[in-house]
């Protein structure tokens, strides 16, 4: 019997799934790797630890669950978080840690470029919003602030490119990850000359571009032996987590959108054309050279509810945040939709789409003497979801969204999914086992292996069994409150900036108090 292994190089760790050839999960395992914040704006990961963790998890999964059942691995397919950057020297050895999407060090470069006409033309060409997350700006930062490392760099890789290079010796980057670097022209599918010039690099310093179906070379002998894999195992380069989550939910075709809410979140659509936007609010990434995954990302998803639970939740057992969240959800469900008029702006981490304001901050608004603790819980959840709705609403200006699917650990909490259905006034579907990204990687692998004729055909088999229908009354109420949410989000622009500045100013003079 043959099986397919998918490897998801995520923000907090690696997830490895084993599927059979009909798309059933045989088993999955994860391995955590840390993010280092040596400076508040820095967010880095150790490429060697990512590599070792990945090997370790694959090895454990194969030895404990796959080989004992006599499965043979036919294919290994990769997915990864977007926007990572790793500089390597001429021997392919890392120059420092990998810089992740959450890194904000290039904020000054981003602000300047975003305000320039060059920024607008680069956005139109590359589809990647001008933001510190973009590798384009990270490379520019290295050039300006770390010239020694910049000079020694032979290649600028993504984390996935590094892992693939370790395994097969090839420097490759797939279309999806490449289209999220801010360096790729998404219309011609070639490195964008003006972006290279802005970053101060040549195309030779980037890995070779490869469609998502590319076989990324042959697995090195040493890893064949240590992992017990056959020499002919296919190493598929795969795509990005965002693109694969969209594919995995079957969002290929008209009228569909998918909402992902993990720690952060996004609303995405897929189609043959890009979303053009003068305000540069949306991303346009490539799945294949004729299929774009477009949408808007938010910084403030499940991590904000995590924050709330840590601060205000009850911990009956030490460190049991899941239990604490469950109690909060039970309390929130006792409050009517709309939280009796208590609104929450969830911008604790600044915000990307649709307002793109790094200075934005969290706000509870409309508080009156009758509000209780329970209202805060519900308002917090509703605020996170109003923000998701505001992205969806702006996408709706360009695409006619008829149905929605939801994935990600926060979005698939039934309480949250129902609120999403009510806010959007659309039916929402989801899968009971939550692995849209890996399932997308399976669809990709299965298509490559000839089980389906095309990704379109593969996407059509996706069944999302759970359905949430919108409640009209709740929808009308949410729509009313949303008007105020939306206004506040932009109206407070000056005050967000002022309070952000003060927070920064007084953080510097902080003294130790017990």
């Amino acid at each position, binding site marked *: 019997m043959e099986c397919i292994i998918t490897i998801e190089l995520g923000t907090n*760790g690696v997830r490895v799934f084993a599927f059979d050839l009909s798309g059933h999960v045989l088993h999955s395992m994860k*391995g955590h790797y840390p993010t280092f914040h040596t400076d508040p704006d820095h967010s880095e990961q150790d490429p060697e630890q990512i590599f*070792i963790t990945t090997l*370790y998890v694959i090895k454990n999964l194969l030895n404990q669950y796959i080989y004992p059942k006599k499965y043979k691995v036919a294919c290994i397919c990769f997915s990864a978080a977007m926007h990572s950057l790793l500089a390597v020297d001429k*021997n392919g050895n890392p120059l420092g840690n990998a810089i992740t999407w959450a890194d904000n060090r290039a904020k000054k470069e981003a602000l300047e470029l975003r305000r320039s006409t060059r920024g607008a033309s680069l956005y139109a060409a590359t589809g990647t919003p001008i933001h510190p997350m973009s590798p384009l700006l990270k490379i520019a930062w290295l050039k300006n602030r770390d010239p020694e490392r910049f000079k020694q760099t032979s290649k600028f890789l993504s984390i996935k490119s590094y892992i693939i290079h370790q395994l097969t010796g090839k420097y490759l980057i797939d279309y999806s990850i490449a289209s999220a670097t801010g360096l790729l022209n998404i219309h011609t599918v070639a490195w964008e000359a003006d972006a290279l010039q802005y970053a101060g690099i040549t195309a030779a310093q980037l890995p070779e571009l490869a469609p998502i179906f590319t076989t990324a070379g042959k697995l090195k002998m*040493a*890893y064949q032996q*240590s992992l017990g894999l056959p020499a002919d195992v296919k190493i598929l380069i795969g795509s990005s987590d965002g693109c694969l989550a969209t594919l995995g939910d079957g969002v290929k075709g008209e009228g569909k959108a998918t909402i992902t809410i993990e720690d952060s979140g996004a609303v995405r659509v897929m189609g043959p054309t890009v979303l053009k936007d003068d305000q540069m609010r949306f991303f346009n990434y490539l799945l294949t050279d004729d299929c774009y995954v477009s949408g808007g990302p938010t910084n403030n998803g499940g991590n904000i509810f995590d924050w709330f639970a840590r601060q205000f939740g009850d911990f009956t057992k030490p460190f049991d945040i899941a239990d604490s969240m469950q109690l909060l959800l039970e309390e929130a469900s006792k409050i009517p939709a709309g939280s009796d008029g208590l609104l929450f702006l969830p911008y604790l981490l600044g915000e990307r789409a649709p307002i793109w304001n790094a200075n934005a901050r969290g706000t509870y608004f409309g508080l009156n003497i009758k509000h209780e603790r329970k209202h805060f819980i519900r308002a917090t959840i509703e605020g996170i979801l109003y923000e998701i709705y505001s992205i969806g609403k702006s996408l709706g200006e360009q695409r006619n969204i008829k149905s929605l699917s939801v994935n990600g650990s926060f979005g698939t909490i039934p309480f949250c999914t129902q609120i999403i259905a009510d806010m959007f006034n659309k039916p929402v579907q989801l899968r009971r086992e939550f692995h849209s990204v890996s399932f997308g990687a399976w669809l990709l692998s299965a298509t490559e292996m000839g089980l389906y004729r095309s990704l379109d055909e593969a996407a059509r088999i996706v069944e999302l069994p759970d359905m949430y229908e919108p409640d009209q009354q709740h929808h009308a109420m949410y729509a009313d409150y949303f008007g105020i949410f939306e206004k506040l989000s932009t109206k407070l622009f000056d005050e967000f900036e002022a309070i952000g500045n003060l927070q920064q100013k007084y953080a510097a003079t902080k003294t130790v108090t017990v």
Partner: protein
Amino acid sequence: MHQFVLQRGKSAELRLFPHISELGIKKNGAIQLNTFLSTATDDIRLYYITEGKFGWRIDHQPYVLYPGDVALILPGVLFGSDDGVLEIGSFSWLHISMQKLGNGHLLPGKWSGLSESEGAAIGKILLLNYTPVLSRFNEAGKILKCIHAELSGHEIGYQTRVNHQLDELLIQITRHMTTQNNPCRDFPKTFMHLEEALRRDLSYQWTVEEMAALVGMGTTLFTERVKSYSGFSPINYLINIRISEAIKLLKRPDISVTDIALDTGFYSSQHFSTTFKKLTGYRPSDFRKNHLHNK
């Protein structure tokens, strides 16, 4: 309780307790100048506030202490108040001499009933988690009171009971410090804290008990939480970090494979080589060759 001071060498009460260098109670009715000057000693010093409010400087940082708080000063750390001012209020204190090992680790002396490994773990955690002010730590006050009572009462078995109380104090301090640093809410943050401690001292032969104690958890719960959060058992996660660090060092030509093995916490280069090959398929020396002269 009246004011008093007992000092090693001067006070007969301490003759059986050479590890206690000083203890006492102070009630300060008026602000005094030039009495509470900054000093550093080889003892572990502990000050428990019962009344008033004291502004003290520990390790160059200013702190304000209130009743129920404990100032904990490790050997070599500067402690006192600016200009030697002593404010109005009461506190009791205790100075204990610890054994200091070559690697800087602290151990309780022979007087202690703690097992060797628990004594070592406590000494290590005090250094790694060092928190100069332990807030709302009334247990410490109770233990000090009990020691005072035993020392003045001289009842049968008091020598053993005083030493028991000292052990109890060390255990309580360690537990209080770890729970204060890890409020049992944010496991990712706690895990990050653990990870940093492991990386700072990777050559050390960590046990699961020590890792769990470092973040203030029992080993059963600790192992379960680490496994569900990281996907690995604590020891396997540690091996993971060890190999990752070893890879980085192997890519630099200036350190021998044997040194890398020991620096990253393997018993021997043989142990390193076996573990490394099992995971990566390469012997460390071959891995190094491949990466130093790639193309």
